[in-house]
Structure formats: structure tokens, C-alpha cells
């Protein structure tokens, strides 16, 4: 039965599909059994996730700035200091830049590769394995290898110079940030509509981050490709044939049939990639460290160094709370919207 289901187009994103079926009527004793079966998970998660988050929250409003725990309440001071901290401001910018570039690159490359592979390619299995296997490697190893590959003095620059081309790009040692300069045409335009504060490097794109995006995309685009491939294969040919018979071009078939049906896959991919990018740590540590002028610094790294190098536990906890809050802001509305949609059915 499952197989025939798979042949029809995916209707909902694979993230919370609260809609499934009307609840089965069952007796209270069975209800007890159901609860008992999920109780181990609930208890474990309650302790290991919510208990610990609670601890973090408590520390984030405490005065614990040295090895000695000091739980005295300081209100939101730590958060105020954090948002005024020059390094954290850069981290926020970096996270936004990284997330946008990484998610977009994975989606585009994943989709392109999937759509190419969906055309009766010889040795499809081989290509698929090649694109997918970087997922098997840990982020730490990825970071080490790509550090070599994009080191300006070696790696890709060296390889390319062997065929005579010498752009000598500085990759992740580039401290340049692309932003709207004050006094430029665009800058003046922004000023005139009252958002002149955007003419600041804190609202720019750190070029060094591109290198990290490349490494992360190498690692995860295969996974997105596989998602899209499964999604594409689940689109029944009849739909596409019908459209073609009606005179639609390939591009139109893509736009009006495939894309809408792939929306759930895209959504799922965005959620997985998005939450990974907000937490990114191993890759940055092993590949670039904080980067020139903190160009590749990320909140998770700042949090780690605050807690374990500087012994500033309160600041570390405040950063975690901010990270969690950011993720929640993105995830909760989507979940709520799904829940509402399902309960309306």
C-alpha cells in the first residue's frame, strides 16, 4: 500500500504534517498505553533538552563571569552588553550572510543535479554516490580539507595557476566586506528614505564567508539533490505528459507542474539546512577559525570561546539563548501554520 502512495505527488512538506487522519477512537486504557509508550522520550527530552535550556536561561541572566558560579540576577544586562559587543554584531551579520548563501546554493545546485540525473543517465548510481558521499564525512574533516583547498598560497589557486591563470584570489583571508558605502549613490538613496544606517559594514557581505559556504555546500548539496530526485520521481508522468500535450514547453512544465509539487521538499530542505547553518561550528573551527577581522566568526564559536576560553559563562549562555530564540522565531510560525492548516481539515 505504501508503494502506491509513493507514486502520487507529495502533498505536504515532510516537516510537521500534522494532518494525517482523523484520530482513532480509543479507550482510556489504551490512551494510557499510548502515553506510556511515548513517556520515555518525553521524560528524556524534558530533562536533556528543556531542563538544560532552563539552566542556560538562568545562567544568561546571572552574573557568572568567572569560574566561580555566581547566580545573582542581573536582569537583561548580559543581553544588552551582548548586542553592543562589536564581535557579536559581526556574528549576526555573518550568520545571515552564511545562511542565505548556503541555503540558496544547496537548493540551486541540488535541484540542478537532481533534474539532470532524472533523465535516464547511464551510471546514475555512480554520479549519485559521488554527489552524496560528502555527507558521510564529518564537518571537521571537511573543514581541514577545504582549508587546504582554498588556502591562497596553495589549493585551487595553485591548481589554476598551473594552467596559466593567476587570479590569486584571497578566499577566506579576504577581510573585505561588501556593503553600501556612505556617500555612494545607493547610500544617498537609502539615506533619503530614512534607512541610512544600512551604510555600515555590519550590514554587508563578508567575502571570506564565501569560502565557508563552498565547503558547506559541498557537504550538504548531495543530500538536497537526493531529496529533489525523490521528489521529482514522485511526480507522475501523466501530469507532465498532459501538460506537454496541451502545448506547454519544458520550461513551463517545470514552472507550473514540477516546482509547485516540489514545494514541500524545498521547505523540508530549507528547515534542515537552515537549522544547521544557524548552529554551524565544527566547520568554521576547523577551516578558518574566526577569520580576518572576524569575517567568518559565528555565534556558536563566540559562545564556545566565551564559555570555555574566557570563562564568561553568563555571556556564553546569553548567546545560546539568542541562538535558540532565533531558531524559534523561524520554526515556530511554520509549525503553528501547519498545525492550523491540519486542524482545519
Amino acid at each position: 500500500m505504501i508503494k502506491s502512495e509513493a507514486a502520487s505527488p507529495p502533498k505536504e512538506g515532510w516537516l510537521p504534517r500534522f494532518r494525517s487522519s482523523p484520530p482513532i477512537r480509543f479507550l482510556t486504557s489504551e490512551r494510557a498505553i499510548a502515553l506510556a509508550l511515548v513517556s520515555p522520550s518525553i521524560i528524556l527530552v524534558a530533562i536533556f533538552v528543556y531542563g538544560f535550556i532552563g539552566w542556560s536561561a538562568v545562567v544568561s541572566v546571572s552574573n557568572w563571569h568567572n569560574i566561580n558560579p555566581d547566580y545573582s540576577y542581573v536582569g537583561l544586562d548580559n543581553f544588552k552588553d551582548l548586542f553592543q559587543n562589536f564581535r557579536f554584531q559581526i556574528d549576526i551579520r555573518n550568520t545571515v550572510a552564511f545562511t542565505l548563501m548556503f541555503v540558496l546554493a544547496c537548493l540551486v545546485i541540488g535541484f540542478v543535479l537532481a533534474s539532470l540525473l532524472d533523465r535516464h543517465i547511464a551510471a546514475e548510481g555512480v554520479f549519485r554516490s559521488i554527489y552524496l558521499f560528502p555527507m558521510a564525512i564529518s564537518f571537521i574533516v571537511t573543514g581541514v580539507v577545504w582549508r587546504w583547498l582554498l588556502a591562497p598560497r596553495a589549493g585551487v589557486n595553485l591548481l589554476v595557476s598551473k594552467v596559466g591563470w593567476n587570479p590569486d584570489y584571497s578566499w577566506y583571508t579576504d577581510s573585505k566586506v561588501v556593503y553600501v558605502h556612505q556617500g555612494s549613490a545607493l547610500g544617498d538613496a537609502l539615506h533619503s528614505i530614512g534607512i541610512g544606517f544600512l551604510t555600515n559594514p555590519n550590514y554587508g557581505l563578508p567575502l571570506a564567508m564565501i569560502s565557508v559556504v563552498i565547503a558547506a555546500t559541498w557537504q550538504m548539496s548531495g543530500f538536497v539533490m537526493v531529496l529533489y530526485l525523490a521528489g521529482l520521481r514522485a511526480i507522475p508522468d501523466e501530469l507532465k505528459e498532459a501538460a506537454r500535450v496541451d502545448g506547454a514547453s519544458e520550461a513551463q512544465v517545470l514552472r507550473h507542474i514540477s516546482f509547485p509539487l516540489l514545494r514541500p521538499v524545498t521547505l523540508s530542505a530549507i528547515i534542515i539546512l537552515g537549522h544547521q547553518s544557524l548552529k554551524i561550528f565544527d566547520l568554521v573551527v576547523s577551516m578558518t577559525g574566526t577569520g580576518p577581522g572576524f569575517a567568518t566568526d559565528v555565534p556558536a564559536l563566540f559562545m564556545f570561546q566565551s564559555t570555555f576560553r574566557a570563562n564568561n559563562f553568563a555571556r556564553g549562555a546569553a548567546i545560546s539563548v539568542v541562538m535558540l530564540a532565533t531558531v524559534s522565531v523561524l520554526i515556530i510560525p511554520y509549525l503553528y501554520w501547519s498545525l492550523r492548516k491540519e486542524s482545519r481539515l
Partner: protein
Amino acid sequence: MRLKSWQVLAVGPLALILLALAACGGGDNATNTPTATGGSPTASGATSSASPLSGTLEIFSWWTTGGEAAGLQALYNLYPQVCPGNVTIQNSTIAGGGGDAARQVLASRMQGGDPPGTFQIHMGHELLDSYVASGDMQSLKSLFDSQGWNTAFPQGVLDIVSKDGIPYSVPVNIHRANVLWYNKKTFTDNGLTAPTTFDQFFQVADALKAKGITPLALGDKDTFESVQLLETTLLGSLGPDKYKGLWTGTTDWSGSDVTAALTTFQKMLTYTNDDHSSLTWDQANDLVIQGKAGMTIMGDWVDADNKAKGFTDSGWVPTPGTSGTYDALSDTFGLPKNAPNPDAVTCWLKLVGSKAGQEAFNPLKGSVCARTDCDKSLFDTYLQSAIDDWKTDTIVPSLAHGAAASPSWLSDISDAVTSFVSDRNVSTLQDRLSTACKTATVCS
């Protein structure tokens, strides 16, 4: 197979109980014994402990490979002679980040109430402002007195490892942070002599730059390298007394002499390689070895790196303006208050502070003894000159390696320096450094 409801109901809690049982019953803490045997020099001069020791001694460090691991092993080999009994040594190590991963694990364990027997930690504020301040370390005053260490170690070191006159850790080795290494062949080819003042440094740098050679190789992927460059510049510019005053609050961070030092630092950065943030210190040393760069300013672990790479053409001088000053850092061991098997730990401390122990460890590690009475002939050329300097130079604590400032303060300084290396703005840097001192409650 039909289950009755109660049987099914039991599954949930049963699973939890099973997990808990496995947890309590299980756990393979099989101890790892990297030998406490093997041929080794006799431990003369080290006081053996009275009664035989037993149990496990857990030693926590980040010495995982190369000379460091070899030195550690040499100490393990000596242990049974100095500390008779059948103690099993557990060598707990975590590599990475110059100790970062280890520090994180150590913090988690200390916070979690599971201290190792003893752990490697830098001398000075890295320990004093952390585990000593929190009351987690035992005083070692009686040990220092009974072992005669108050005379074996120079006063400068005793000052650094002590808080309010009480020592809390035993220095195994001494590394020097203010060393300028250069490629002798590059210098002779270009008719240059090693600089000893900043003016000479810039003359040499200009000459190298004109020849297309990077004057100063810098590899600051791990950040500490540029902090170390700052500290040697401060030291050379301000002199040892004012430098020490920076860490006690007697020297004003906003003063004009500091401004001058920072401006010199800014100038030095203009002579470094552009890709410094992608290189580690040893990769920067590679540039010197290959002749692509002329000099590098780095601690004396460069000596070990040169030896490993078979480079014999290395020359060294103290960094500009710092002749006669020893910018010291040290790896030390202390005694946590709730350490398991404290007797075995205390005997270990006696071993690492002893002449025999230090003579076994340091030649392999590539550092000099913290003691002043070690046998010079055991060491290589560079280290012998370092030993001579160690006996007579003024000793100052290193910033980048935890001796001069608390971890929190060092972290603020490192952030400011990282930013500076990119934006080169001296006044912003000076502001941030002054603020950092105030945040650290050392300056007012």
C-alpha cells in the same frame, strides 16, 4: 503474539529502567596504561615517597604527539622509581587548538565535579584566576618548602605561580615567547644582520621587502600568534617594568607610551604576508624555511619545528628591544582539591619539579627547565643559549599564553587584536584595550 494491556503498559517504564541499569552496571572505565616501565635514567635527587602508592593516577593534558608526548612518556617512565608502588597512570589527552579542546573538557569536568588527578595548565593567571579563585586547588606551599623549590626556581617564576605568596602549581618547563627567528642564508645573501632594535628591524624589513621577500611571516589562524606579536612589541617598546605594570594596573593603557607601542605594532603588520589568517604559526615558519620570508616572531617551539623539518640554518635573537628580558610561559601541574588519589598526585608533582624529572622532560619537549640547575649538556644549541638567558634575564609573564592576564581579559584583548589586524585603527584598539583592563577589574 497477543500482549495483555498491562504487559504493554509496562514497556515504557521498563525501557527506562533497563537503560538506567545498564548505566549503573555498565561503563567500561578500563584504564589505559601507557607503560610505567622501560629503561630510564635513575631518579637521583628526587625524594621518593614513604609508603607504596596504588590506584590510578589520571593525568590530563593536550600533549598528544611528537616531542611533547615523548617528554610526557619519559616522566611516566620515571614515575615508578620516584613513587614506588603500583600506580596505574591514565594518560588522558585531548589535542587541538593549542589546548582549547582540552580546556573545554576540563571546564566541563571541573564544573561537573569530576576533576582529574592533575591537569596541565599554563602558569599564572590562567590558573590563578580560574580554579584557584574558585577554591578548587590545594595550596602547594609545604611542597615547595619541603622540596627546596624556593631556591631551585627563579624568583620571577615563583612570583608568577603564586597568589598572595602561596604557590598553586609546579612549572615543568619554560618556553620563551620573545624570540625572533630568521633564515641565516637569506640574511647573508642580502648582507643583513639580525636586528635588535625596532629601527634596525624596520631597516632590515625594508631591505627584504625591496627584494620581494616577505619581511615578517605571520600565521595567526589561531589568533594567539598576533597577540604574541603585540605582547613582544609592547615589551620591547615599554620595557619590562612598564610591561609588568600593564597587568597590575600601574601602567596606564591610555598613555602615550602605549600609543607609541601600538603604532609600532601597526607598522610591523605592514611587513607581514597578506594570507596570515589562513596560516598557522608553523606554516608561517615554513615560509622562513623556504626563503619566502625573512623573519618570524614566535616562541621557542619553532626550534622543535625546525628540527622536525631538518632545517639547520636558523638564527635567533630576542625580539626588538627585549634583550635581557625573558617573556616566559610555562606548563604546570597542580593539585585539585577533590582529586582522586591525591598521594599519587603529590608524588607526581614532586617528580615534575625535580631535577631528574625536568632533565628527562625538557630536552624532548624542546623547552628549558624551570629550575636553574639542570644539566646544560642535555640540550641542543638553541636551548643552551636559552638556559643561559634564563639564569640572568628579567622574567616577565607572557600575555598570549595565560601568564599575565586572566582568561577573560585575554579573550577581550584577543578580540580587539583580531579586529585591529584587519582595520589597523590604533585609537580603536587602544580604547578597547583600556576598556578590557577595566572590565577585568585590574584598572579603574
